[in-house]
């Protein structure tokens, strides 16, 4: 083959390889990869598929439940599921850690309200278990979290988030996310509504007039009026909403957008059945005074020793029953669940508000000041206005009033987006809104234990006295012949119940050392010497008597301090001398040998040439 032919072949190959060259400039995309799923809205079907995928891909931290299986009807009115995702380590166990509830789409047309919870799910499972990563490879780690702000002033936004925080939250909390509480309503609204256009459907798809057909005019229940706490108290009230429109706070009229569902008319506690007199044809009669006689209002209305055990309304819908089936209340309501939630976030739109209880009365809750403070801290992330529910307008039977009144959870309602964005914002708004509110979810999860303690001591704010740790990790090499000394300063020492050092050798299980006080608030501990070549990771853990733990570094053990154990020929001047000696020796032998042999060869060649060989 001639050279020219070969050149042709080479050219052909190069042209095929060129796309390979092109592909070489792989872009450093520092947005989370799952964000491409948020370029448009989910619907019930696509969301269900994704949730199943997530659950099967992350069996170590995710469990997927269809909560309607725990309800009277076994499904929503149209046969759909209410999916709940539990995200926690050891997800099959119930651990002694704070539980958070995040709910979206009570109302069908508030599409953004199910996107935000979905984003939270992806963020947590995607980042779980990943080490602190320099996502944007600028040498700094985790310096620009996802919150729509340029935290590190480098011109880029949200490009380096904290994986350790996500891991820590999943390990130390149980996060329950119900992205779409009202799937029937959402699917119906997807049929009738368009992007960018306001209006749309709000309720679920209950067949109110029982004619076998779903008809907008007659059917549907407003889920956020269907909770039994102070249910229907304000049913006759006309209120003026913030934008000056007169609306009904809560209505008994099935056609109304705020229809709270049918009366209960059921003897939940079974005390209405009384013996009939002997002459009565039936053996039992109903005492109508004993039906719905102890509504859910934290009062033992019928003086029978049980509180709120026979509600007068609420929980008539499979969707709200889904919530009931997991929430643990402090009263004797029937059909409630086992989980005591510390904080709950219920997403709605629109309004750009963070709303706290009460909704049914202008009176403040006992925790009013704590709500204001906690709300303000969450508002630092999304910039929304923090108001009391009744300041918006009076309602009755909403989720938050029930969670606070019956379960003593700290509940918030978050109204996403502004009035101009409306109920169906354009899809470009999804990622920014999700990013903006991610911090709210993470903050609530992270500080739920502090909130619990604040609530239990009736504190006025989240700023309760807590112990904390001052420590700077400086030594990242230790020798295999010495123990490693750690000295920390504990702030608010009197509140510290335990100060513990945890260390792990080469990725094995963490070992515990109780740190000893050496006075002045200082504590010390020694990590025993390890074999050379190992990497030791450690962190410090201080807790108070309530059980709130503070770690150093903050998200231990997802992040930890580490040091390398080196041989005992250390790094001092003796070692440097040894190194210099070796360099001279080795180079002497090798390069010396090379030069010497080359010299011999050169001389030999010259000899051979001269000798005329």
């Amino acid at each position, binding site marked *: 083959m001639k050279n020219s032919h070969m050149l042709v072949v080479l050219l052909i190959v190069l042209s095929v390889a060129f796309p*390979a060259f092109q592909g*070489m400039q792989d872009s450093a995309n520092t947005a989370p990869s799952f964000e491409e799923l948020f370029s448009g809205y989910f619907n019930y079907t696509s969301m269900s598929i994704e949730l199943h995928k997530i659950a099967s891909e992350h069996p170590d931290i995710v469990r997927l439940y269809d909560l309607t299986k725990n309800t009277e009807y076994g499904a929503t009115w149209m046969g759909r599921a209410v999916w709940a995702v539990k995200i926690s380590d050891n997800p099959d166990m119930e651990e002694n850690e704070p539980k958070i509830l995040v709910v979206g789409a009570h109302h069908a047309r508030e599409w953004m309200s199910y996107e935000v919870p979905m984003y939270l799910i992806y963020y947590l499972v995607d980042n779980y278990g990943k080490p602190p990563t320099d996502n944007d490879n*600028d040498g700094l780690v985790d310096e620009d979290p996802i919150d729509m702000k340029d935290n590190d002033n480098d011109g880029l936004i949200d490009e380096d988030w904290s994986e350790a925080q996500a891991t820590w939250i999943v390990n130390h909390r149980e996060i329950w996310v119900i992205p779409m509480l009202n799937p029937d309503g959402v699917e119906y609204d997807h049929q009738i509504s368009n992007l960018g256009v306001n209006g749309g459907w709000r309720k679920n798809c209950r067949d109110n007039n029982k004619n076998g057909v779903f008809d907008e005019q007659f059917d549907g229940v407003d889920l956020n009026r269907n909770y039994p706490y102070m249910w229907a108290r304000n049913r006759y009230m006309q209120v003026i909403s913030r934008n000056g429109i007169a609306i009904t706070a809560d209505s008994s009229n099935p056609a109304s957008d705020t229809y709270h569902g049918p009366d209960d008319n059921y003897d939940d506690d079974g005390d209405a059945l009384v013996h009939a007199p002997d002459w009565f044809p039936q053996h039992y009669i109903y005492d109508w005074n004993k039906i719905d006689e102890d509504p859910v209002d934290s009062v033992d209305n019928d003086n029978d020793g049980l509180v709120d055990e026979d509600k007068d309304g609420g929980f008539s819908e499979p969707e709200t029953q889904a919530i009931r089936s997991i929430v643990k209340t402090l009263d004797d309501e029937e059909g409630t669940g086992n989980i005591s939630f510390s904080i709950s976030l219920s997403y709605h739109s629109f309004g750009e508000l963070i709303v706290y209880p009460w909704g049914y009365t202008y009176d403040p809750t006992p925790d009013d000041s704590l709500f204001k403070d906690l709300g303000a801290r969450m508002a630092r992330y999304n910039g929304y206005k923090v108001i009391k529910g009744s300041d918006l307008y009076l309602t009755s039977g909403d989720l938050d009033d029930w969670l606070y009144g019956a379960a003593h959870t700290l509940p918030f309602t978050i109204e996403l987006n502004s009035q101009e964005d409306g109920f169906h914002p354009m899809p470009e708004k999804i990622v920014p809104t999700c990013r903006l509110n991610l911090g709210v979810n993470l903050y609530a999860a992270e500080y739920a234990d502090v909130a619990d303690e604040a609530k239990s001591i009736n504190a006025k704010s989240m700023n309760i006295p807590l112990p904390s740790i001052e420590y700077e990790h400086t030594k990242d090499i230790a020798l295999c012949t010495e123990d490693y000394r750690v000295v920390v300063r504990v702030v608010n020492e009197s509140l510290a119940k335990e100060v513990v050092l945890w260390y792990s050798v080469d990725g094995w299980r963490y070992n515990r050392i109780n740190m000893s006080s050496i006075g002045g608030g200082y504590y010390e501990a020694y990590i025993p010497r390890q074999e050379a070549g190992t990497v030791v990771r450690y962190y410090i853990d201080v807790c108070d008597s309530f059980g709130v733990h503070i770690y150093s570094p903050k998200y231990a053990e997802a992040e930890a301090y580490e040091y390398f154990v080196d041989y005992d020929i250390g790094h001092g001047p003796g070692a440097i001398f040894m190194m210099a000696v070796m360099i001279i020796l080795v180079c002497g032998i090798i390069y010396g040998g090379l030069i010497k042999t080359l010299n011999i060869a050169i001389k030999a060649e010259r000899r051979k040439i001269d000798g005329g060989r």
Partner: protein
Amino acid sequence: MAEDRFTSRWGFILAALGAAIGTGNIWRFPREAAKYGGGAFIVAWIIALFLWSIPLLMTEFAIGRKTRKSVIGSFAEFLGEKYVWMGAWIVFVSTAINFYYSVVMGWTIRYFFLSASGGLYKGVNTSSLWYSFISTPYKVIAFHVIAVLLGWFVVRRGVSKGIELTNKILLPSLLFLITVAAIWSLTLPNAINGLKYMFIPRVHMFGNAEMWIHALAQSAWSCSAGMGMAITYAVYTKKREDVALNAFIVGFGNNSASLIAGVAVLCTLFGLSPTIADAYRGIEAGSSGLTFIHLAHLFSLMPVGALIAAIFFLSMSFAALTSLISGFEIAICSLMDAGFERKRAANYIALATLLFGLPSAISISVLENQDAVWSLGLLPSGLFISFIAIKYGASKFRSAFINTEDSDIFVGKWWDLIICLLLPAEFFIMFVWFMAEVVKTSPLTFATLVIQWGTVMFLLVRFRKKLYSIFYSRKEGKKK
């Protein structure tokens, strides 16, 4: 017709050095040295140079120069039909290694272009860069093809115009480039840590068998001793060429290159990694992990680093190419003994490398398996070569073929002892050790090893008569 030979002694030496100096010097030596006790490892490695590599190189140069026949032909000539399969084994193993070596060379070429075109900018995630490259078969294949074509282009032009010329250009270039990289790395902030980890002897390692074995293995594989390359290149030396001194020169030269590369790699790694634990992770990351993930990332951190990266990867590509062509030549030489013309033989070998290297290009697990299986095959190769000298009689062999009147230095009785006693013992120890490691880490890989080795050995031994007649006793065999 002018015989196709090296035009001078230096041409031969440069070619042998080019064959010896490959990716193993650049990415394996620094890793092993840092991991196995720095100065201690280097001491053991130098000792291994004298107790394995140089004696074996001498044997090979002597064989090739005497028989002027390919590896297979040499075995036929020295040992007859009964043992010709040994020579075939050597050729097969080197060729099988070449199949995936071209894929590896493709990687280095890709990374050269990547860094030269600015692909290693600050902020790039080199880990995902590497993994996405590896998992995109067509990209890996493209560069594998380029590597094969480059090698083919060189070997079909013959010894003086192809191999010698290429090595004359590339070898000094690559040494220059890696020296530049080494000098740059010495200017880095914590470069001294690299030197510490490379040279400070961890004295207790001298009592560690694993260190000695790894030092022996590193010297063996790095010098390409006992692989058939030295026999093959010696075939093309001029009529009266020295054997012993050349072996020393190649040995020292190969080690010199390793030392420079060691400085370049370790001073960059320890100089730019944020903590020593991080640097250590780079060492534990394996050859490709260290080079294409950790080093690439570290290069990207410094403004001039992208240029140094290009220099580094270019020198790696040159080293790989000069080693690749030696692999080709071992097989081509054998084919020429069987009567094929060089150009024809080159076509066949290039095509075979292209095709049989595809599985390794498509799947990195295949590549790793082939690497595990066939690089160990070099151990028997070394044994077989020493077997020639042992069977002939070590002293006899030495006085007949090494201490010839063309020899520039005298090789004493020490060589006999090494060849007869030490070499087989070293082979045995290394063989058992590395086989045990394979079994321990992956019984599956061991199973594939046994199957592949068994099949090849069986076929070669079974058809040794055929091999003998094809590669040796041909009537119309071409004279060299």
